[in-house]
């Protein structure tokens, strides 16, 4: 049951949006507490965050979708029902988004231009999808190439959030042989702060957390060397995985339907990439904290890492060769045998020659010398 709206609702602020949707201060504080925990902030920051966000003007956001599958948008709009995504859209003014906006054609482009003009230097740009650098016709919107639209929109932005692995690292379009010449946002925009939120798709609460941080502190969170918020991407999935104790006990599922799999043992031997994947899946989880891939019985495929698609088969353990085969080793052994036979033949020939050339000394010769 929703409580009364926050008393200090100022027109045009997030607080007003929350009040209009009947979200109580208690609910909002609860939400901010979980966000503060996710962002590794002290508990006291929850109320500061709630205050700052509710007083903040709804952030203008322009969402650009390039070479993508709409999975990122699906992820954010269809999970944590009903609170998180609605809270996120209450915090922002989503001025342009192909999938979600009602307008189309010229009207849609006009909305983007208007938002850029009205919020010059203050709006956030969210990008999902990679940008093709080959033929502009690979991906264009309203006759504008993805590259040109990104450059034009990024010019007046306060910061850019690259949502999903495609925008952050190039993702699947960037996979070998990269037919469209796909690149991530960071290879085109060099003069604006870029927050990478990789994942295929990314976790919704990470997205919300980044926005909340921006609204509360007016800046971007601390990032790692790949431009990812440290609070969400600081640990590997393996280190936070609830199956980690089984790894340490040497208990592994060997197939997807053996006793080990049924007992919930570690999936390392089934190709889990959790040890080299930095993300919050094991802690934040999906679908309102219900589960994540490993909990569902499938190893992590490392979807938030750069070039994960080209990092070897999904079902081969990390400690095994990507492409070496017993046949390859058999060929090497055959080569070794051939070389060994050649060397043996050479050694024996040398020995035989030395024997043949060796001058034999007889007892007669020795007796002659004694005389």
């Amino acid at each position: 049951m929703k409580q009364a709206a926050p008393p200090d609702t100022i027109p045009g602020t997030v607080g007003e949006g929350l009040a209009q949707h009947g979200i109580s201060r208690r609910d909002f504080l609860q939400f901010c507490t979980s966000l503060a925990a996710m962002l590794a902030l002290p508990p006291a920051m929850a109320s500061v965050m709630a205050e700052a966000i509710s007083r903040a003007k709804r952030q203008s956001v322009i969402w650009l979708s390039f070479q993508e599958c709409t999975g990122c948008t699906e992820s954010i709009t269809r999970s944590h029902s009903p609170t998180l995504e609605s809270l996120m859209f209450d915090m922002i003014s989503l001025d342009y988004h192909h999938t979600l906006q009602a307008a189309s054609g010229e009207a849609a482009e006009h909305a983007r231009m208007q938002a850029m003009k009205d919020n010059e230097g203050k709006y956030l740009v969210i990008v999902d999808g990679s940008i093709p650098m080959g033929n502009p016709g690979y991906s264009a919107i309203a006759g504008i190439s993805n590259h040109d639209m990104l450059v034009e929109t990024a010019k007046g932005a306060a910061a850019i959030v690259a949502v999903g692995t495609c925008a952050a690292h190039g993702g699947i379009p960037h996979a070998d042989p990269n037919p469209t010449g796909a690149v991530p946002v960071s290879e085109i925009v060099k003069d604006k702060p870029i927050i990478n939120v990789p994942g295929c798709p990314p976790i919704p609460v990470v997205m919300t957390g980044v926005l909340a941080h921006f609204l509360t502190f007016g800046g971007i969170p601390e990032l790692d060397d790949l431009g990812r918020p440290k609070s969400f991407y600081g640990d590997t999935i393996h280190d936070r995985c609830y199956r980690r104790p089984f790894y340490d006990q040497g208990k592994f599922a060997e197939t997807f339907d053996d006793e080990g799999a049924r007992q919930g043992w570690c999936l390392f031997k089934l190709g889990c990439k959790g040890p080299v994947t930095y993300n919050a899946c094991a802690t934040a989880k999906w679908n309102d904290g219900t589960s994540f891939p490993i909990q569902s019985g499938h190893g992590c495929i490392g979807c938030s890492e750069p070039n994960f698609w080209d990092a070897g088969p999904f079902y081969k353990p990390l400690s095994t060769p990507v492409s070496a085969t017993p046949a390859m080793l058999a060929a090497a052994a055959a080569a070794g045998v051939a070389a060994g036979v050649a060397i043996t033949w050479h050694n024996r020939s040398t020995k035989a020659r030395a024997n043949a050339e060796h001058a034999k000394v007889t007892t007669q010769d020795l007796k002659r010398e004694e005389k």
Partner: protein
Amino acid sequence: MTHLDILTFARGSALNWALMVFVAGVTLRLFEILGFGRKADLAKPRAPRVGSGWRTMFTRSLPEPGILRRDPVTYISGYVFHSGLFLSLFFFGPHIAFFRSMTGLSWPGLPTALTDAAAVAAIVALVVLLAHRLNNPVKRMLSGIGDYVAWTATLLPLLTGYMAYHHLLIEYTLMLALHLFSVELLLVVLPFSKLLHSFTLFISRWYNGDAFARKGVAS
């Protein structure tokens, strides 16, 4: 090039070439050694030699009487190192997965706390052995560059594996790649250095045991 790209290269082309050099190198060296042959011993054996070679393969692993007093450092450290290396190499889960991928054989692993302790013991023993080699005048005089190369090639996989497991110094993915590179260095060095004893050890023990039996000192 990201850390994951480096790891993929370490698990891919680099490992393929290292494994091929290793397999071809070991096969070549064994052929070379066995191909030398021995002159037929025409003398009548002094004692029955049945099983002496096989017994010697194992009895040479037991301490010789008095050796603990004569050279305790070499003996104890040698034993600790080889035991630690054996346990950490063959009983750590991810290593078993590697052997299974290459041979199809698999066996139960040990808890990581035990394999980790075994690796630490092996590292400490290697350091002690190096210090002893440098401090003992006879050992120092007998040591050549090959000994130090073999020591380094053996230490690096143990050290990088330990550091990767404990997330020490550098990021895990990169350290795992370094671990694999160090293993690849070991694979390339092994057939052409004294480390080949991991293969020739039992052959030479069998030969010695058998030859000594002919001379009347069967084990």
